[in-house]
């Protein structure tokens, strides 16, 4: 279905996007309200919460340029050493910026 973006069409499309996004923000909470929080469920959720991040990051590392990879590597090492997120992020971004100036 094609929507004309002249006139109110654009607003309609944006509202539809907003509703779909809202459904994703609310949907997980809504579904969980029917699931009893057992120990197994907690274990699943706990394992899943780190996995969300890893699953976002993996393709970023694989498909990124070497600047992107260096940034991630620098962040990981800095975080292991310093254990503070902000210096780790700053070091990673700086590494990408410097690498890309070369």
């Amino acid at each position, binding site marked *: 279905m094609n929507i004309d973006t002249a006139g109110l069409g654009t607003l309609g499309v944006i509202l539809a996007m907003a509703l779909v996004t809202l459904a994703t923000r609310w949907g997980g909470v809504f579904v*969980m309200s029917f699931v009893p929080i057992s120990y197994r469920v907690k274990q699943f959720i706990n394992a*899943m919460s780190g996995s969300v991040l890893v699953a976002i990051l993996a393709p970023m590392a694989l498909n990124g340029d070497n600047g992107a990879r260096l940034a991630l590597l620098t962040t990981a090492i800095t975080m292991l050493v310093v254990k503070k997120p902000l210096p780790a992020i700053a070091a990673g971004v700086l590494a990408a910026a410097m690498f890309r100036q070369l």
Partner: protein
Amino acid sequence: MSGVKTELHQLNTRLVWQGFKQLVPIAVFVIAFGIAFGLAATQAELSGSMIVVMSTLVFAGASQFAALELWGPQVPLFTLLITVFAINARHLLMGATLYPWLHHLSPAKRYSVMLVASDANWAMSIQAFSRGQPGFGLLLGGGLALWSFWVFGTWLGIYFGGAIQDPMSLGLDMVMGCFLLAMVVGGEKNLRMLLIWTIAAASSLMAYRYLPDNSHVLVGALAGGVVGLFWMEQSHEH
């Protein structure tokens, strides 16, 4: 312990303000993404007011950029909404992972704080909970910081888009990636988590390659979750 536990879901003005302040350093970078989005959206011939409306109501950068790819005089609505859903489906997981704490809140509060859930503030909040600290101030306050800076950045991009010529050469495209990685590395580390992460990464990459676009986050996260079910931690609670 039970006294501490009931405090975890607390939510008050002080915690929200602290959460706001804690996310400001990240939100500053979100302005740069916002500028990039505002600029790209003007180039896709969206009007200034509609671009601001989109950032305000949708507040999900990656899916908004994807929408621009499909934008034109005619927009394929179904394709667009499927794309938006797939990219934002990770919010479903975020809501689910926060549920053990969210269910202490009234439904009105529960769904209100989720309005501003996004990657950075969710990651901070879930990490706080796993350390035994209250996390909803970070979720709501941090979310408000990210949201307001995102809308502000979008607005800047529409009118002063030329200011940041090349965000990639400054490494700005890596801010979110580095942030999320710092959250992973800062979390609990043991053999069990390492295996979970490895399976999650491998499944995500396989899905990225062989399954439909944008399915990799869901596939990777669910695979990691299933590993967690098969290798459960020794229960500390009983």
